C-alpha cells in the first residue's frame, strides 16, 4: 500500500475515525493492529521478519532489565544485612553490565544479521563473482527484503542500546514494543525514532483537538503537495536524463543533478511530512527529520539538517561509542606519542568518522555507489574541517562572512556540492557517475537551455511552469521558517479563514496538479528502498 494510493488514504481515514471513536485505552492497540494490517497488505511474509525482531528485542530488553534489577536488589540486600561494601557494589554492577552486554551483543547481532542477510547477501555474492571473474560462481539468492527493514532494525537496535545503557527501561508489554517497532507511518521511510521519545506519546490516550488534528492534516497535504506535484512530476525528466547516458551529457548532467536534488528533497521531505502529519493527527509526536537542509552553509551543517534521525543515530550509537572505546583511546594515545600532536588529535576521529560514513553508505544500499557516496561525504567533511582555519583567516581578511550575498553563495555551494556527491545515487554506477560528471565540465552544450531541448524530457512547458511555481511556494515557506524560526502553521492557525483557506488551496492544487492516478506510475518513495 503506497502512501500515494487511494487505498492508503482510505485506510488512514478509517483509522482516524476509529481512533477517536474508540475508548482511549483502545487507541494504541488499534494502532498496532493497523500497523500490522498495513504490513500484512504489503506482504504477509514481512510479518515474520518484523515479528522476529520484536520478540527478540522484547526478550533481550526484559533480560537486560532483569540483570540490572538483580544487581540493584543484591546491592539493596547487602545494604540491609550490613555486608555492603563499595567493592561489592562495583562487582555487582560489573556482573550486571557484563550480562547485559552479552544480551545486547547477541540480540544486536541477530537483528543486524537479519538486515545483513536480507539486504547484503546478493551484494556479497556479486562481488565474489566479480573477484573470481566468473558470473555465476555463486548463484544469487532470492531473498525477500522486508519493507523498511533498515528503519525498523535501526530503531530496534537503538532501543536495545538505550536499554543497555539504562537511558530507558525495557518495555514489559510485548504488544507495546511491537507498536514501537512497527508504527506504520514511519515504517516506510522513517524517521528513526528513539523509544524514549516516541513512547511518551505513542501509548497515551489522545483526545481529538482541532489544533492537533488540523495541524497534522495540513502537514499531510503539504507532504502530498511536495510528493505528487513536484517529485512525481520531475521524476519523468530525471528518469529520461539518467536513462540515456549517451545522449544526455554535459549540461544535461547538470540539469539531471539539480532535478534529482529537487526530486529527492520533495520526495523524502514530502514523505516525512505525511508521516509526521499522520502521527500528529493521532496526537503522536514523531521526531523531525529535516530542518531546511538546503539552507545549510556547509556540509556538516547539511548533515545536521538532512535525515536528522539517521545522522543522530549514527552519531549516538556508532561515532561516540567508537570515539570513547578503550582501543580507540589507546590508539589516540599511541598516535599522539608516535605521530605527533597533529595526527594524535585527528587519527581516531578520522577512523570513527570513516566508519560512520562507510556504515551510512552501506545502510543506504547494497551497492558500491552507496559506499562511494558515503566515503565522498566523509572526504568532503574532513577536508572542510581541515580547511576551517584557512576559511577563518580568509573571512577575517575580507569580512564577507556577515554579508547576505556570501550566505547565499555558501548555501548554493553546499547544495551544489551535495547534489554532486548525490550523483552516485542518481546513476547508481561509480565509473559511470565519474564519466558523466566529467562531461559536465568538458562538454559545453549550454544551448539546451534555450533551444527547447528540455521540452523533450517528458515534461511539457506547462509542467515546467507547475514545477517552478511549486518550488517557489516551497522556497517561500522555507524562507519564512528560516528567517522567523517559526513554523508557518503557528501563525496561520490563529486566523481561521487563512488556516482553512490554505488547507483547501493546498488540497485543490495537489488534486489538480498532482502527478497521480491513471496514466501516471504510482511512484514509491525513494527512501522506501532503504
Amino acid at each position, binding site marked *: 500500500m503506497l502512501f500515494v494510493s*487511494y487505498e492508503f488514504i482510505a485506510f488512514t481515514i478509517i483509522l482516524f475515525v476509529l481512533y477517536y471513536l474508540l475508548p482511549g485505552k483502545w487507541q494504541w492497540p488499534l494502532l498496532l493492529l493497523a500497523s500490522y494490517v498495513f504490513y500484512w497488505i504489503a506482504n504477509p511474509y514481512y510479518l515474520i521478519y518484523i515479528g522476529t525482531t520484536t520478540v527478540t528485542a522484547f526478550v533481550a530488553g526484559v533480560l537486560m532489565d532483569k540483570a540490572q534489577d538483580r544487581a540493584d536488589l543484591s546491592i539493596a540486600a547487602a545494604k540491609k544485612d550490613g555486608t555492603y561494601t563499595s567493592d561489592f557494589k562495583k562487582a555487582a554492577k560489573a556482573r550486571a553490565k557484563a550480562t547485559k552486554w552479552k544480551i545486547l551483543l547477541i540480540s544486536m547481532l541477530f537483528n543486524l544479521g537479519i538486515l545483513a542477510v536480507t539486504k547484503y547477501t546478493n551484494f556479497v555474492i556479486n562481488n565474489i563473482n566479480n573477484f573470481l571473474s566468473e558470473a555465476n560462481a555463486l548463484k544469487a539468492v532470492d531473498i525477500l527484503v522486508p519493507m523498511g527493514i533498515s528503519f525498523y532494525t535501526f530503531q530496534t537496535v537503538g532501543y536495545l542500546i538505550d536499554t543497555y545503557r539504562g537511558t530507558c527501561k525495557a518495555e514489559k508489554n510485548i504488544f507495546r514494543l511491537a507498536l514501537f517497532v512497527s508504527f506504520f507511518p514511519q515504517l516506510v521511510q522513517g524517521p528513526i525514532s528513539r523509544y524514549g521519545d516516541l513512547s511518551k506519546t505513542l501509548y497515551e490516550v489522545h483526545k481529538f483537538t*482541532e489544533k492537533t488534528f488540523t495541524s497534522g492534516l495540513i502537514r499531510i497535504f503539504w507532504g502530498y503537495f511536495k510528493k505528487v506535484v513536484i517529485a512525481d512530476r520531475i521524476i519523468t525528466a530525471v528518469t529520461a536524463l539518467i536513462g540515456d547516458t549517451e545522449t544526455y551529457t554535459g549540461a544535461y548532467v547538470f540539469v539531471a543533478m539539480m532535478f534529482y536534488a529537487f526530486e529527492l528533497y520533495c520526495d523524502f521531505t514530502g514523505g516525512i511530512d505525511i508521516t509526521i502529519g499522520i502521527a500528529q493527527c493521532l496526537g503522536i509526536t514523531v521526531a523531525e527529520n529535516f530542518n531546511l537542509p538546503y539552507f545549510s552553509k556547509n556540509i556538516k551543517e547539511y548533515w545536521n539538517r538532512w535525515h536528522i534521525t539517521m545522522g543522530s543515530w549514527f552519531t549516538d550509537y556508532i561515532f561516540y561509542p567508537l570515539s570513547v572505546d578503550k582501543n580507540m583511546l589507546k590508539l589516540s594515545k599511541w598516535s599522539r606519542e608516535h605521530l605527533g600532536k597533529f595526527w594524535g588529535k585527528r587519527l581516531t576521529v578520522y577512523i570513527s568518522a570513516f566508519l560512520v560514513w562507510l556504515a551510512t553508505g552501506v545502510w543506504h544500499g547494497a551497492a558500491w555507489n552507496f559506499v562511494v557516496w558515503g566515503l565522498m561525504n566523509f572526504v568532503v567533511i574532513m577536508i572542510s574541517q581541515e580547511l576551517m582555519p584557512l576559511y577563518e583567516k580568509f573571512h577575517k581578511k575580507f569580512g564577507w562572512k556577515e554579508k547576505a550575498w556570501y550566505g547565499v553563495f555558501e548555501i548554493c555551494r553546499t547544495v551544489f556540492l551535495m547534489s554532486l556527491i548525490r550523483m552516485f545515487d542518481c546513476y547508481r554506477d561509480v565509473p559511470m557517475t565519474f564519466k558523466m560528471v566529467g562531461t559536465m565540465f568538458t562538454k559545453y552544450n549550454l544551448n539546451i537551455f534555450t533551444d527547447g531541448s528540455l521540452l523533450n524530457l517528458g515534461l*511539457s512547458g*506547462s*509542467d515546467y511552469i507547475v514545477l517552478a511555481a511549486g518550488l517557489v511556494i516551497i522556497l517561500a515557506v522555507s524562507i519564512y521558517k528560516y528567517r522567523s524560526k517559526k513554523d508557518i502553521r503557528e501563525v496561520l492557525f490563529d486566523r*481561521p*479563514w487563512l*488556516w*482553512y*483557506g490554505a*488547507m*483547501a488551496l493546498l*488540497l*485543490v492544487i495537489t*488534486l*489538480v*496538479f*498532482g*502527478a*497521480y*492516478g*491513471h*496514466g*501516471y506510475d504510482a511512484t514509491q518513495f525513494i527512501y522506501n528502498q532503504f
Partner: protein
Amino acid sequence: MRKRITALITVSVIVCMALALLTCLFIPKYMRGIVEGALTAEYYDDKAPHEVIFIGDCELYENVSTVELYRKYGISSYIRGNSQQLVWQSYYLLEDALRYETPKVVVFNVLALEYNEPKSETYNRMTLDGMRWSPSKINAIKASMLPDENMVEYVFPFLRFHSRWQELKATDFKYMFRRDPVSINGYYLRADVRPMETFPDPKSLTDPEFGSNAMNYLQKMTDLCKSKGIDLILVKAPITYPYWYPEWDAQVTSFASENGLTYINYIDKMDEIGLDMTHDTYDGGQHLNVYGAEKFADYFGSYLSENYDLTDYRTVPEVAAIWAEKEDLYNRILEQQLAELEQYGELMNFGKNAIE
C-alpha cells in the same frame, strides 16, 4: 470557536463546489471528433419507448440506421453501443436499460465475443462513464477494470481526468453543463464515402474457442432476456473486417441452437441486403456509412417486423412526434455532412478532422 466553525464549513463548501465545477470542466466531453464517449449517456435523455434495443459495438451503432427503421417500419429502437463494447459491458448496459423499460426484442452483435478480458481503459471509460449509477454500473466497472484502474476514479472522475488542465479546449468550457446529441437513438451517422480496401489475410487462430468469460456473459444475457420475456437475436453485422472466423460462427450457431435463439450472420447476406462496399462504407469497409446503414436497416427491419409483434409507432401520435424531431436531427446532420463534403471534399466537423 464560532468563527472557526463558520470558516471550516464555508471553506469545505467552497472546496466541494470547486471540485464539482472542475470535474465538469475536466471530464472529456466527446462532442467533436471522437464522439463515442457521449453515446451511453444519451440513452437516458430519450423519451420514446423502445421495442427493439440493440446491444453491441461499432458494428451496430455505425451500421444500423434507427431512423430508417422507424421511417420504414415504425420500429422505435435504440442502440446501446460503444467503441469496442465488451460482452460484459453489453450485458450490464442491457441490465441497466431494463431498469427503465422492457423491450420486445434485444439484438446483440456477436463480434465482441472475441474478447475475453478487458482491453483498454480509454474504451472502458467511454462506455461506462455515461452510465447512471446503479448496481449494474458498479458491476460493469468491476468486470471491466484493468489492473491499473481504480473504482475510486470512476466514482470521482476528477481523479482520473485532473491532468486534463494541460489540454483544455474551448469545447470543454462550452459543454461544462450541457451536451449536444451526437447520435440518433444511438446511431452515429456518417455520410462520407471511402470504398472498401483490401484487408490483410486473417491470422490463424491460436485458440478458436471463445473465452469462458465472454461466453458466460452471453449466457447471462440470454437468461436475463428469457426471464423478462424478451426475444434475443444474435447477429453478426455485414462487415468482413475484422475477420469473422468460421470456427467462431460455428460456436455462435451452436450456442443459439442450444438456447433456442435466432442467430443471423449478415456477412452471408451482404448481396441480398444490397450493400455496395464501393459506396456504402465511409472508412474502407470497416463500418457502413449512412447509405449502407439505411440498406441494412431496411433489410433487418423487414425481418423484425415480419417475425415479431412490433408496434408501428408511426401511428402513435405522441411517439411519432418524438420521432419527427429525431428525423429532423438526422436530416440536419446529414445535410451538414453533405454540405461539408461538397465544400471540402471531406468532413470537417465530424470524425478525425474534428478531433481537437
